[in-house]
């Protein structure tokens, strides 16, 4: 059976070495360029007409905009809309990265923890920097909810700090884990198909079972790809809400 991990291998396309560091242009970087190019082309081409009655393609772009804008307004309030460019870019990048990864033979950018960790760190550093810049020391009230008895306050502060530190970890691991696990499962079932089909006439008929399974799993993976992009977006909005309104949750 083929190694199900091999699909995540980084392959240098243009080897670049600066000093002792490896700055090669890899298949991961190539796919990121493709994702950004696809997003920009989709949004520019569909909205260039700017008709009052939108065409089908224009209404797709408008639906994507309205969907993310509604999510931001609902979870972070109207003044959260100043973060809309960040949230919309993150949503489109993660969604397109997950969907491009579903193309057979394509590389899944979000199945590398360094990519998802960089996105999560971007979100959390935005929360910390904006929170302290906007609210100063009042932002730290986030860690001490008001109206608590003084006796349990130290315990709650410790719990809140741990919960805050675990946010970037869980945000990045959730996306990485979902994409990696899904793609490994697809490859494992694909391995069953080839292994059974190569084992004689009975095995060839039996291979129909994993084929059905892999079809269902592919449909599930498309659902997971869209759902995880949405989950990443909405958690980003919830964390940004802490930067905008500390102590109001």
């Amino acid at each position, binding site marked *: 059976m083929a190694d199900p991990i091999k699909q995540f291998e980084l392959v240098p396309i243009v080897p670049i070495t600066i000093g002792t560091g490896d700055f090669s242009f890899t298949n991961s970087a190539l796919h990121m360029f493709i994702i950004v190019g696809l997003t920009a082309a989709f949004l520019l081409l569909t909205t260039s007409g700017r008709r009052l009655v939108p065409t089908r393609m224009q209404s797709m772009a408008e639906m994507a905009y309205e969907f993310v804008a509604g*999510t931001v307004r609902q979870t972070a309030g109207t003044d959260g809309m100043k973060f809309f460019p960040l949230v919309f870019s993150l949503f489109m990048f993660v969604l397109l990265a997950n969907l491009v990864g579903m193309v057979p033979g394509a590389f899944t950018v979000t199945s590398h923890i360094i990519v998802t960790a960089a996105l999560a760190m971007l979100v959390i550093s935005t929360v910390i920097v904006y929170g302290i810049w906007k609210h100063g020391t009042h932002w730290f009230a986030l860690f001490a909810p008001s109206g608590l008895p003084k006796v349990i306050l130290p315990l709650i502060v410790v719990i809140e700090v741990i919960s805050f530190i675990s946010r970037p970890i869980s945000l990045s691991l959730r996306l990485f884990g*979902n994409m*990696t*696990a899904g793609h490994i499962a697809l490859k494992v079932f694909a391995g069953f198909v080839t292994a059974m089909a190569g084992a004689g006439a009975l095995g060839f008929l039996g291979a129909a079972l994993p084929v059905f399974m892999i079809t269902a799993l592919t449909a599930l993976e498309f659902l997971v790809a869209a759902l995880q992009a949405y989950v990443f977006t909405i958690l980003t909005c919830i964390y940004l809400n802490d930067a905008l309104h500390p102590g109001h949750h």
Partner: protein
Amino acid sequence: MDPVAAKYIGAGLACLGMGLAAMGVGNIFGNFVAGALRNPSAAAGQFTNAIVGAALAEGLGIFALVVALVLLFVV
């Protein structure tokens, strides 16, 4: 015990956590559907909360998966 065998047993044990996370996610969506059937008009407004709750519960299962993957491929 053979260290390689211990590694694989550990990875298998770590996967038990994913089953427990599945119980959590199922509990959230089960209760969401039960509530939505009682009051369908309020369901749309609470769908986001259901998704966030499921994502937080699932995240802990993903931690278990990462422990298993680390045991298999890194340690």
